């Protein structure tokens, strides 16, 4: 086991004792959401400002089925992953036709489109009031209504998601996506259909978002309208950038910082997003690789300082 694995295991075990289990579960499900975005943002170099489209769609569809058809938990997760991937296929197909600013605006515009569908379709989504009454059905005698047990469930899924993502970024696909980030023209010239690969990244990212969306719906028992809103899309970008885009563990650290800050600060100080803004500015100006980069640079400094002390 390497150090990152140990650190994550420790964090998983200790977290529900530091914050409420519900918040701890939210941190890890948001991390899954961030993992999906990071494949686009960090590895492929595509800034998607519409990730909540997939997160929210999956939450609504799986939540609806959970509520009205009492489907099993794993079936709900499967549905969420499927809906996430499918909506990403649709949105991605349109977005990868353009690049740069137009790409970003398209992801945003389509997110708004989905948002207004959810807003208007009150008979299903409940509109502004959200869709309450999403159950957390028991499975094989495991009562997921117990917050601690549900937390453990989310933690295991986060661990699995991380493992899957690790395999993907270490596969040829991961390297091809990075090649596209580095130089799209050359990637095309050496024989890759760049648009097709971007779309694949979208679909995989959408599947992760969908999984996170279902976990979210079951965690809070409700799908609020904001689950499909642009603020959620922005939050996941924020969290990923703060943690460190382009590194595998960045989104996990990022969602920890983001959710923990928002939950703990929002009760003591209404203007807490100011802090987030400051953190964001610091990251963009000084640590483009987020917390992950700041940490490794700190490590270098400490080692330098130690070796200079030994010489003296």
């Amino acid at each position, binding site marked *: 086991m390497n150090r990152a694995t140990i650190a994550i295991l420790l964090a998983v075990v200790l977290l529900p004792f530091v914050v409420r289990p519900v918040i701890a579960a939210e941190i890890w499900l948001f991390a899954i959401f961030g993992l999906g975005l990071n494949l686009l943002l960090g590895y492929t170099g595509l800034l998607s400002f519409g990730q909540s489209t997939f997160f929210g769609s999956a939450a609504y569809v799986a939540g609806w089925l959970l509520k009205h058809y009492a489907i099993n938990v794993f079936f709900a997760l499967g549905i969420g992953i499927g809906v996430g991937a499918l909506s990403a296929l649709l949105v991605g197909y349109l977005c990868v036709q353009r690049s740069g600013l137009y790409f970003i605006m398209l992801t945003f515009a389509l997110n708004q489109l989905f948002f207004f569908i959810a807003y208007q379709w009150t008979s299903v989504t409940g509109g502004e009031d959200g869709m309450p009454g999403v159950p957390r059905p028991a499975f094989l005698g495991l009562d997921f209504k117990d917050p601690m047990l549900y937390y453990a469930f989310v933690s295991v899924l986060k661990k699995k998601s991380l493992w899957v993502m690790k395999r993907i970024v270490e*596969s*040829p696909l991961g*390297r091809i996506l990075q*090649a596209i980030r580095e130089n799209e*023209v050359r990637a095309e*010239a050496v*024989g*890759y259909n760049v648009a097709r690969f971007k779309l694949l990244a979208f679909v995989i990212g959408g599947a992760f978002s969908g999984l996170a969306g279902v976990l979210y719906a079951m965690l809070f028992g409700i799908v609020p309208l904001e689950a499909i809103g642009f603020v959620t899309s922005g939050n996941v970008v924020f969290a990923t950038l703060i943690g460190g885009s382009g590194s595998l563990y960045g989104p996990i650290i990022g969602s920890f910082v983001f959710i923990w800050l928002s939950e703990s600060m929002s009760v003591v100080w209404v203007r807490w997003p100011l802090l987030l803004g400051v953190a964001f500015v610091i990251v963009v100006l000084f640590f483009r690789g987020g917390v992950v980069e700041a940490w490794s640079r700190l490590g270098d400094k400490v080692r330098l300082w130690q070796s200079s002390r030994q010489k003296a």
Partner: protein
Amino acid sequence: MAILETKSLSKSFGALAAVKDVSLSIAAGSLHSIIGPNGAGKTTLFNLLTGTFPPTSGRIIFNQKDITGTPANHIAHLGLARSFQRTNVFPAFSLFDNVWVAAFACGSSWKGLVWRKTDRYPEAAERARQALSDVGLEKKSHQLAREISHGEQRQLELAIALAAAPRVLLLDEPAAGLSPEETRRMVALVRSLKGRYTIVLIEHKMDIIMSVSDRISVMHFGSLIAEGAPEEIQRNAEVRRAYLGGIAA
């Protein structure tokens, strides 16, 4: 026998005819150079051959097959690889990864694309190593592309094209921006590739062209104005006029 042919190939950008009615025939195994003053349409011709954009009219025949309009990402798989005039590599990648990406693209199988580890493709790795050693960069394979010198980046540019194991290499000014010493090495490199590949070379430096080419085509304002062996081209009055702007001729 011709491996690559163009028939009355033309490309216009609005009112500008960048390539006009070009009919070329590249013999298999030869080194065929395309020369001409700046703006003659040489790079546009390469872009047409590699599917960067489709021609306005005319046809491209590769290996007896009409490949006109084939998109860029298919061209490499057919066995037609290019290097770029402006260095066009993957800056944050190691040199090995730069060529590996090209080797994998044209490898025999993409099995395990999303799951297998990148080091589990011995065929692609071997071809990548071979391409790096062909251009003399095997000792730097772990360095990042953005950290090596301009001359080495030009070599890497060539290695990426080689890693695709092409039948025809299209080299767009491989010696652009090189010092005399580096140019000498690049010429030796291109010469060493001669015979192993069919090479189409765009170049400005006359000494290179005359010493390595089997055949030379001359472009001027988008059209072919002459074609022949190096000695013939040197004697051609029209070519001199094109290059010297009518002063010396």
